[in-house]
């Protein structure tokens, strides 16, 4: 077996160990540790794989880019994992299975990001989606969680069906399901072009559903609100990261930008997502719904990178720079979002913006972290989010995508309003201090906040090391 499979294999081993442990004796701490250790070893294994040369086989492709994305995925998973224990202790359910499903979802993500074949991609996707259904509906008593679980089950099944249909049509055209062969020989046309475009649209529909892009976004707010917080964090980060990477690989490998209709569809979806996300977020009271809409908008922004074509209008926007933009944006957005979710996990009783009122004067450090994360999401300079936006704008300007850029500017101004609402609530004075009693401000959460601040602010002020690293990866 090739060394490249080690990280997934280690996680699989961890899953099996938890299963075996469950047969003998239930122990929350043990499951927590097993999952944590396997994640950690997988992370290190992934780290050692960074310098390995490229390799690919029928199902998977391993190169510096996929290794980097896998590393990112494992890091995000690790940060989320570190918060699960506290949260799980508060619910009245069997706790150990959560780790099982969690690891399976991470494995699904790992399979997806390095898949090179519709079969492996689909396996990864289903592994992740099915685990998510369990993770979403984990709290059996909670009506909202049940509803969210059913919603996700049905909708993700439909999305998968769309993807399968698209893959089938592509198979009809190309006679193979492997990404590299499917997407490259477009010379021998068996089917008419509209059939290929239809196939692409089918696949897009499925992927856009997972990315919650307009018009497939209606589920996301209910799901974010209804499902357990940790699951929401994973849905917003892991699943979207993996799916976006697949989308990116399909579009660039297949050179789907050659079809004008596809370009129009992507532009329309991007613009609609930016505006829908930001406008719907405006008056949300619930924090998680707000984050859900913000994530629609952010993936709308990110969709712009799919439109970069190598027409060399300005030569620094090479393929490599486009990839750098994608990776930088993903890193910035994911770490910011993970930070936001870990702050939410430290504030277990707080569900709406109004309940945040006055937090800054009681728990300045947590509030300050949340404030900076909001500024990062809004893209204010000296935060990581701004650097990501800068990459995106620079790349988009060099491609002269003026329509999308104006949509980006307008919608981010609208979006600024709700990020500011959170900050405004934080600094208002409140008379009622009792609601802050349940804040989890132990040593571990403080150190996690420091880590988040170091990433968001440190890399925001001195981004050169990260951008250098990403340049090497993409170069």
């Amino acid at each position, binding site marked *: 077996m090739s060394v490249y499979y080690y990280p997934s294999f280690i996680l699989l081993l961890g899953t099996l160990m938890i299963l075996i442990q469950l047969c003998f004796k239930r122990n929350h701490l043990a499951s927590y540790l097993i999952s944590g250790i396997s994640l950690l070893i997988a992370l290190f294994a992934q780290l050692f794989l960074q310098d390995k040369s490229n390799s690919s086989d029928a199902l998977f492709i391993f190169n510096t880019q996929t290794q980097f994305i896998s590393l990112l995925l494992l890091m995000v998973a690790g940060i989320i994992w570190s918060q699960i224990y506290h949260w799980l202790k508060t619910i009245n359910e069997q706790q150990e299975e959560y780790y099982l499903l969690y690891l399976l979802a991470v494995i699904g993500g790992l399979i997806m990001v390095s898949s090179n074949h519709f079969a492996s991609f689909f396996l990864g996707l289903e592994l992740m989606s099915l685990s998510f259904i369990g993770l979403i509906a984990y709290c059996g008593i909670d009506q909202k969680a049940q509803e969210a679980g059913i919603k996700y089950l049905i909708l993700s099944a439909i999305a998968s069906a769309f993807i399968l249909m698209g893959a089938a049509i592509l198979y009809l055209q190309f006679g193979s399901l492997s990404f590299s062969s499917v997407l490259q020989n477009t010379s021998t046309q068996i089917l008419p072009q509209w059939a290929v475009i239809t196939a692409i649209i089918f696949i897009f529909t499925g992927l856009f559903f997972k990315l919650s892009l307009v018009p497939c976004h209606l589920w996301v707010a209910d799901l974010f609100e209804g499902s357990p917080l940790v699951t929401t964090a994973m849905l917003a980060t892991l699943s979207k990261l993996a799916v976006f990477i697949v989308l990116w690989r399909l579009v660039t490998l297949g050179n789907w930008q050659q079809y004008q209709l596809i370009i129009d569809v992507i532009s329309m979806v991007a613009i609609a997502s930016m505006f829908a996300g930001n406008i719907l977020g405006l008056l949300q009271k619930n924090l998680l719904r707000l984050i859900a809409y913000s994530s629609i908008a952010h993936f709308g922004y990110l969709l712009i990178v799919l439109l970069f074509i190598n027409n060399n*209008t*300005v*030569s*620094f926007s090479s393929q490599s720079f486009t990839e750098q933009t994608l990776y930088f944006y993903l890193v910035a957005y994911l770490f910011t979002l993970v930070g936001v979710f870990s702050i939410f996990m430290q504030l277990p009783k707080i569900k709406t913006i109004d309940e945040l009122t006055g937090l800054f*004067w009681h728990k300045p450090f947590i509030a300050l972290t949340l404030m900076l994360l909001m*500024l990062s999401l809004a893209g*204010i*300079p*000296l935060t990581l989010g*701004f650097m990501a*936006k*800068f990459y995106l*704008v*620079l790349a988009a*300007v*060099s491609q002269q995508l003026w329509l999308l*850029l104006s949509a980006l*500017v307008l919608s*981010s*101004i609208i979006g*600024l*309003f709700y990020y*500011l609402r959170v900050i*405004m609530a934080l*600094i*208002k004075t409140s008379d009622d201090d009792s609601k802050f009693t349940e804040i989890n401000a132990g040593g571990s959460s403080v150190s996690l906040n420091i880590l988040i601040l170091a990433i968001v602010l440190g890399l925001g002020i*001195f*981004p*050169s090391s990260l*951008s*250098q690293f990403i*340049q090497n990866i993409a170069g």
Partner: protein
Amino acid sequence: MSLFLLIIIPLLGGVFSCYSERFSSDLPKKIALATLLIWWLPIIPLLNNMAFDVNALQTSQWLVNQSSNWIPIFNIRAHLALDGLSFLLIILTLLMGLVALSSAWHEITKRTGFFYLNLLWTLAGVIGVFLAIDLFLFFVFWEVMLVPMYFLISIWGHENRQYAALKFFIFTQAGGLLMLLSMCALIGLHYQQTGILTFNYIKLIQNPISGDLTFWIALGFTIAFLVKLPALPFHSWLPDAHTQAPTAASVILAAVLLKTGGYGIIRFVLPLFPQASIELAPFMMIIGAVGIIYGAMMAFVQTDLKRLVAYSSVSHMGFVLLGCFAFNIYALQGAIMQMLAHGISTSALFVLVGMIQHRYHTRDLNQLGGLWINLPKLSAFGLFFGIASLGMPGLGNFVAEFLILVGSFEQYPTITVIAASGLILAAVYSLLLIYKTFFGQIKRPYDSKISDTNTKEWITLISMCFILIYLGLHPQPIFDLIPLQFMELTFIPSTAGALL
């Protein structure tokens, strides 16, 4: 490193003063005062070779020029440089920092530590804007200085503060995003045309970009600066922000934050886009003239003292816009002088309004009147600064407005004539302000509990008077400092240069 010190000192001072609140709520303001005084130290060696060595000014634009690596992948450098223009504005910033501190001294009693942190950080951001010569760094300072200002308004402001702070932030951010877009387009075009990827201002002005897009890029930059100036269609954040902000924040806002707009036009728009700015000029002249009249007329109908002064700012900053786009050396000198004089006279008016509000708990013109009997000294200052704002000869504002009108008359006689009528309107609202508050019907009977200016207030105000008188009587040293000959500005050659 002296230029970097100028930014680091207030940042550190702010942190110390925020931390010191744990020990005593009086300590933060003392630390802020100490910071503001220490802040002058890096300036002193500069004073030495600037004010007293005119030869240094003749040889190059940049007196101090420091840079270090920041983001090598985009060739972005942390590049600070100082020339006469930024020197003047930095002196203004430091002075107004002291004025703001003086007005906050008794007014701010809650959360003092965080207040002075924000105050000092705003000033640090403004200084950064005046010093940054790398476009990216300039943009970063431009945006970041808004965040502490937002906190100043939304935490310590008056009744409707949240709305005002939000409006302020969103307006200026919108301008900022437009600037980001234009900046990226500028860099991209420059790279396309010369093959050099650089954010360095000095390199960018050597090869101005050309092509169809230039006009739009210039427009993007200009709108971003117009929002801050503020010029007519984008001004509506200013009255709200000024009215709701605490006095110290109003002072900073009027005295230095608005000046970044004018500075940006002079420093970036005019040299970077020589051709496009000539194309833009007629529109900008019209916007400026309309702004002058509109601001003055709006000031006239206000009943809220702070709003009145805020609209008078809109009117005065219209003159700056007029001066910048006249492409005439006198007008440009006048515009810079207007920035300085307006900075001092308007912030003095805000300080006075703050004092009145502190004593009477109202800013409503209809509830004030006849303050002279209670507050003779304060009213005398009010008279002085009111007259300064209407452009009395002998004070800085007169020199500025006169030069701007003389300079722009040549190219745009009609617009200038219209703009000049703004001076009459200025007299109307200034005299109304003086009449309704300090003289007129006595609505506030004598009350021995309300005290006149104390020593601290008196010193603050009297020093501002002297600066204005100096600017009005002997402005030449100021003009000598501005290195117009090096700034790569195009001037439309004057046929009737003998006007002066």
